[in-house]
């Protein structure tokens, strides 16, 4: 009885090898699909020639090429490398900052517009509110507080998909946590009575150092948890 393509070749191991070498997941997926199909075609051809199952399998595997050659054909070509492998500093250092900055800009825009819509003339938007304003400001608040965690999860997902070592994802996660832990919002109204409110943001440790550190630690833990669970499970799977 002929073995299936997956019994004949350890595609999971091959996939891991390509991903660890930096080949982009979409290229890996497609390459393996085409190789598995090709192997099936080779076996059909060999069977048609009346070979025994053992001969069929070995001839098909030989025809396809060695796993080393197949892997090298992909890993030697830089154009198939993912951004995570080519420029990890950009993917885990720069991109998270830009995404977090973008999300916070949207959150601040919601806060500023809500202030002008629901609290015209108010000295600050940080006052008790009711009605639709609760929902409106709530969206902005949610985005502001959840953005670091979402960006952190995205970092973990990218790192997991590419089977990256923990160094670069950890750099990204620490950056995000520090930004989230030290970000401070300020709102003030200009001296002109009809003037618009002014919202600004900066990064500072304080008023309580412990508070900032704790906040950063919470963000890091929540954002990094899925990635480290995945790493732990993967390590257990391969050691089993």
């Amino acid at each position, binding site marked *: 009885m002929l073995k299936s393509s997956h019994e004949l070749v350890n595609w999971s191991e091959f996939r891991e090898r390509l991903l660890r070498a930096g080949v982009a997941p979409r290229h890996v997926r*497609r390459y393996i699909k085409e190789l598995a*199909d090709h192997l099936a075609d080779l076996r059909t051809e060999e069977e048609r020639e009346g070979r025994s199952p053992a001969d069929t399998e070995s001839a098909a595997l030989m025809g396809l*090429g060695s796993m080393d*050659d*197949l892997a*090298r*054909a*992909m890993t*030697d070509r830089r154009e*198939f490398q993912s951004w995570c492998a080519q420029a990890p500093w950009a993917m885990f250092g720069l991109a998270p900052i830009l995404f977090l900055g973008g999300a916070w800009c949207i959150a601040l825009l919601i806060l500023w517009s809500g202030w002008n819509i629901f609290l015209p003339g108010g000295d600050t938007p940080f006052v008790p509110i009711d009605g639709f304003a609760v929902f409106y400001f709530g969206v902005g608040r949610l985005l502001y507080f959840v953005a670091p965690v979402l960006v952190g999860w995205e970092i973990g997902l990218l790192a997991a998909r590419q089977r990256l070592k923990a160094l670069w994802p950890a750099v990204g996660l620490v950056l995000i946590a520090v930004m989230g832990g030290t970000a401070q919002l300020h709102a003030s109204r200009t001296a002109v009575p009809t003037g618009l409110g002014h919202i600004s943001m900066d990064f500072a440790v304080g008023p309580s150092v412990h508070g900032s550190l704790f906040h950063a630690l919470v963000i890091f833990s929540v954002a990094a948890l899925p990635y480290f669970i995945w790493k732990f499970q993967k390590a257990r799977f391969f050691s089993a």
Partner: protein
Amino acid sequence: MQYLEPLCIIKFMSGRETNPNFMNGVPELLILRLLQQEEMYGYEIVQAIRSRTDAVIAVGEGVVYPVLHGLERDGALKSRRKTVNGRSRIYYSVTRAGSRRLADLSKDWSNLTGAIQKMLMGGQHAQVIA
């Protein structure tokens, strides 16, 4: 052409591997030529190269896919999924840019083979004179 260099993906059927630098662009040329006539999937391409070159040239079977993917990435090929006999296949065909590339490659290759042929004939001529 650069991405065809690292692998000796072409072998003469005698089993002797060719100099990879010398064979630069050959798999690309053969693939583009085949696909200009009709769309094919990977296995068909490999078999067609073997049969149409009378098995003189055999492309390394599995490693043909990175070449196809590279050509597609460069815009010389396009692909589409098609289900045939219950199996989903990725069929490749040549784009306009691919046709232009094929024309350039064919011209380069014709010049090269012409020059080599001339050298070989010249060599024979020299022997006769000697």
